[in-house]
């Protein structure tokens, strides 16, 4: 597969969570070229919370022109991404997926790595809600 790939940004209240989930998703998607994945966790000064700056930087960092799918964990992370999208502070082609954090991240990175477009990547992440475990 050649050409541009959709980027994935993982926004968590915790930097450790965002970084670890990104690492796990990359590892599970490996086998060919992996899509760009960036973690935006915690605040800029290392606390638990959400940073609009870190989110903007992460999205710009993985934006290859094919779109970026953002997956956030809870509360302020979800609301900050939504507010940034509504204010057009994120590049065109960026969207937020309504998805469970870890399962959605894995599905998104696998789909993006396989060359899926932004709609397919977001849909894969959102379908992760349907994986039953019992």
């Amino acid at each position, binding site marked *: 597969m050649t050409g541009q790939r959709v980027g994935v940004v993982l926004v968590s209240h915790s930097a450790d969570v965002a970084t670890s989930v990104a690492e796990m998703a990359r590892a599970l998607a490996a086998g060919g070229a992996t899509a760009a994945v960036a973690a935006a966790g915690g*605040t800029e000064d290392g*606390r638990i*919370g*959400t*940073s*609009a*700056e870190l989110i903007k930087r992460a999205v710009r960092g993985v934006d290859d022109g094919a779109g970026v799918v953002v997956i956030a964990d809870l*509360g*302020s992370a979800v*609301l*900050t991404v*939504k*507010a*940034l999208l*509504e*204010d057009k502070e994120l590049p065109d082609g960026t969207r937020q997926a309504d998805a469970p954090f870890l399962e959605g991240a894995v599905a998104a990175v696998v789909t993006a790595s396989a060359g899926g477009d932004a709609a397919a990547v977001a849909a894969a992440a959102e379908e992760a809600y349907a994986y039953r475990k019992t």
Partner: protein
Amino acid sequence: MNASASSTPDPVIDTEFVRRWLSLATSAIEHKSGWLTELDSAIGDADHGINMHRGFTAASAAVEKEPSDTPGEILTHVGRQLISSVGGAAGPLYGTLLRRAGKALGDQPTVSAEELRVALRSGIDAVAQLGRSERGDKTMLDSLYPAVEAMGLALGSGSGLVAALTAARTAADEGAAATVPMLARKGRASYLGERSIGHQDPGATSAALLIAAFAEAAGADTA
């Protein structure tokens, strides 16, 4: 209306008015930061006072540095600062409120009391939409909606800015107090279910402080 309201002349709503509001709001939040955090430790994650204090301090500093020509521009600027510096859900929520209100005020150098009311109302509607929330969910909307409604009733019956914002302040305080028996349906407090009952909502409380700062910026007596 009451004697103190009618004896105070109504100020013009210009950049000076909005700067006074920001300075009064920032110091109110600084003084009540401990209380906000205490309320938030009962049903939230105990950071609301600290987060609001950080956000408003950053917004005040930014507005002091950058000259703004219109009330709308200042509100928009404060909103942007809150989104980038609060670090909790209050950032995108209050940030959206003020940015939307600022946009609604446009680029007029002065605005009327009714234009301010309409702008605040559209900002509050944007908060409801962003949080997919409504009145009665035990959120900031429970003090914000009563406040703009009281302001509208007062203006509609011929009151001036001071009286209308004084009525808004009273309604916001009552709205915040009325969140005590509510069951939280949004945010971290909603995970507590029935245990969220019996505590005043920190967001409704900080929203009432911001409304009170508008009344004081207009020259209303300190409550």
